[in-house]
């Protein structure tokens, strides 16, 4: 890539309203540094407290989710999206879009689709109720069992999104059929 190409890429990113883009590993330090920086930029741009918190929260949940998928399956950590995935935050006219993309095992598509479809069909009140129930269920789990969010992660993201979460799966570039590319979009 020469400077002219790079500058045209920069210009496109700016006109598309991209305020944050990261692809690669989502380790703990990367997540917190990126989340704090995103928060500072939201505050500087005059975004409201609740919008800032919602975007911060959605970013953290999506990023930690990417990290979990990658750590659960070492195979996912290799290849085109080594170590994780991608998160992009885009500023629209009156809202922020946040999109995450990562590689998952094809075998998980059904399970993930069912969960996200069920979230998509819920009203905000129903999401809050489901959140409460999930919290209650998790109280009865083994205290020392490692928590992967106790199923609350997507509920948290869905609760903060102005529109039902959009998601999509596409085939992964490795062509083996073992993996798929998984995308989710929330609107804050």
């Amino acid at each position, binding site marked *: 890539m020469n400077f002219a190409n790079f500058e045209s890429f920069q210009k496109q990113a700016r006109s598309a309203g991209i305020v944050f883009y990261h692809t690669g590993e989502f380790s703990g330090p990367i997540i*917190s540094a990126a989340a704090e920086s995103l928060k500072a930029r939201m505050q500087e741009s005059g975004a409201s407290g609740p919008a800032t*918190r919602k975007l911060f929260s959605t970013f*953290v949940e999506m990023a930690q989710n990417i990290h979990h998928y990658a750590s659960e399956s070492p195979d996912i950590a290799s290849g085109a999206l080594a170590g994780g995935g991608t998160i992009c935050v885009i500023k629209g006219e009156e809202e922020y879009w946040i999109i995450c993309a990562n590689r998952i095992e094809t075998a998980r598509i059904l399970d993930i689709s069912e969960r996200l479809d069920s979230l998509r069909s819920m009203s905000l009140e129903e999401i809050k109720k489901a959140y409460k129930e999930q*919290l209650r269920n998790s*109280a009865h789990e083994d205290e020392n069992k*490692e*928590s992967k969010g*106790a199923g609350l992660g997507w509920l948290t993201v869905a609760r903060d999104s102005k529109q039902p979460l959009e998601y999509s799966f596409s085939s992964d570039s490795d062509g083996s059929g073992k993996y798929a590319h998984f995308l989710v979009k929330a609107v804050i």
Partner: protein
Amino acid sequence: MSVIRAERTQVTPEVIFSPLENTLHISGECYPENPLPFFVPIVSALKDHLVATKPSLFEAHLHLQYVNSASTKGLQSIISVLNDAGAAGSAIEVYWAHDPEDDAMEELGVDLVEDFTHVHLHRVHVAA
């Protein structure tokens, strides 16, 4: 008796557990990727203290600006240990401070305590 004083980090809040004063203060943001190493020592010190001394009054002051979903279970474990002490006769006062504009934190406080009838929840508004 084990006193806990943990400084705030980028992803975990400040913690001051004082068995002598029968207070627990937690304040800051809480979003560790793996919450267990943060919560387990607090829950266990709290439980040991409450079971051993059966205080007449214990106060928890929780002021969290943000909690990730993975950490809600840890907070619930704290409330659950407090509730057990409440059931055993201690008066348990939980002060849940949040930004009045922040519905999510307000609701989290209510949701966390809802099933625990031996804990008294006090909601405190603190501007961000």
